[in-house]
């Protein structure tokens, strides 16, 4: 009944093997990691810069070379330090992978929508499934993430920018709606700003397709005990029951799209 009682899960310290500057604010870090069968797209790892620690989605799951990657956007002191100061040869600590990823084996045609660095959570889907149409959205051309990576791997991506400097002009949700109107898709998956994700859930309801979305909440333990990332009204732990939730779960989340909690656990409205 009791599993892993004797497991030690201190961070595994790895040496960065490759870094890729994706945009002026987004950078990818590749490091050696034993890729086992139970590692799935949508899961996350706790990343320790040998000082502080934050949850990061896994952006590269490379079974052939036993490598993993994370992709971070400069958004605060931790990610700014990662972007500016951590490079090839440097060491970081990794705990995990943790949480529930995307479960897409039952679907015929998948529409995946990534907003900004949210595409990091979705990109590994392309090495697990061959029935994914991917929308990559950003404010402008310079902020589109993984453009070269997708080109190199010969993957067609529907690009989308708010200002029209590349691809579709407008919000990712507008492009998603156009694509849903074809009736080809039986699920929409997404990761990005919460307002975008919330609209994706609404679209899935409007077009009666399934939905799986990755959510982001302040995390401390990643192990399901501190309670910091619990989400109203179900009390689901984003680190265990999430970060990817399905349509039924998402419909029960009264705080989704409305507010989150900060380091103290106080409510912060969107």
């Amino acid at each position, binding site marked *: 009944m*009791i599993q892993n009682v004797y497991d030690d899960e201190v961070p595994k310290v790895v040496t960065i093997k490759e870094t890729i500057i994706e945009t002026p604010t987004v950078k990818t870090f590749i490091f050696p990691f034993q890729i086992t069968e139970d590692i799935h797209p949508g899961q996350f790892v706790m990343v320790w810069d040998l000082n502080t620690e934050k949850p990061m989605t896994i952006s590269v799951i490379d079974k052939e070379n036993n490598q993993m990657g994370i992709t971070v956007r400069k958004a605060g002191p931790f990610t700014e330090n990662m972007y500016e100061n951590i490079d090839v040869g440097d*060491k970081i600590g990794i705990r995990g992978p943790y949480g529930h990823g995307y479960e897409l084996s039952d679907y015929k045609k998948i529409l995946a929508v990534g907003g900004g660095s949210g595409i990091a959570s979705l990109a590994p889907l392309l090495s697990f499934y061959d029935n994914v149409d991917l929308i990559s959205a950003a404010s402008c051309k310079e902020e589109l993430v993984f453009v070269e990576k997708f080109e190199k791997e010969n993957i067609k991506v529907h690009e989308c920018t708010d200002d029209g400097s590349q691809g579709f002009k407008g919000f990712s949700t507008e492009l998603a709606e156009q694509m849903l109107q074809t009736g080809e898709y039986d699920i929409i998956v997404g990761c990005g700003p919460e307002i975008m994700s919330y609209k994706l859930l609404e679209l899935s309801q409007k077009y009666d397709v399934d939905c799986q979305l990755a959510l982001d909440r302040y995390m*401390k333990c990643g192990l399901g*005990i501190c*309670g910091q990332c*619990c989400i109203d009204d179900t009390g689901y732990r984003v680190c265990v029951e999430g970060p990817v939730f399905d349509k039924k779960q998402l419909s029960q989340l009264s705080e989704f799209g409305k507010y989150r909690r*900060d380091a103290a*656990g*106080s409510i912060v409205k969107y």
Partner: protein
Amino acid sequence: MLKSNILGMKLKNPLFLAAGILGTTASSMKMVARAGAGGIVTKSFSLEANDGYENPTIVKIEGGVINSVGLASPGVEAKKEELMELEEIRDETPVIASIYGDSEEVFCEVAEQTKKLVDAFELNVSCPHAKCGFGSNIGEDPEMTYNIVSSVKDAIKDVPIIVKLTPNVTDITKIAKASEEAGADALTLINSVGPGLRIDYQTAKPILNNVLGGIAGPMIKPIALKCVYNTYKTVDIPIFGVGGIKDYRDVLEFMYAGASLLQIGTSIMYDGPEIFKNITDDLSIFLEENGYNNITEIIGLSHEL
């Protein structure tokens, strides 16, 4: 079989959610109640909001965790909102507020503001990773503990006061006795052990941002049991046993040692909130198979043999 009536609380089973675990929001506490907990202890809170320490705040180690969350919590105003939402479960699942502070005045003020919303208070005078002046800084000293307990007791007449003690003292029974003499209605034994330390072997960096943290989980059970066993002989008030309970056999050990009630924390990491139902089911079967009529019959059994 598992029902009891202690400190004015009618309990369907004696297994409470321990302080500090899944106790920040009303919805997470309700989720644990739905999963089968007999009662809830909130995460500790005080007058002001507190971010606690920077991550890493928790690291999983062999047989448990080391944690230095540092009493992260919203202040009493925000916590009142969460407590109000728990009103609907209190008939079935009593709610104990864990509160902390650095003075008698703060403890009393927090208790005063929330007393109508809870079934008991658990005074946290034992957190091993709190900032100076809080937590175990108080609970390592019988006189300071006495003063805080008696002040809260004087200020709050109708709500039971439980004192959660640290094992990191030469003789826990002295602090237990001081708490009882100050008017405590019950004790919780024990808060986490240590503090302890883990260092990454490659980089020589301490893993926790705060360097040191309290050790919890199955590895501390023998220490917790000793504390309960010794304290049971010294005081006449009920004892909550906590420290590494992961299945019904651990519950039996704690009750034989003298605990009337139990709390579960770290083991939720292994088995999820379902652990409450698993343990209560197994416990009922054990008691029935061994000819007991009620779980209260086994409290302190080891002392009678």
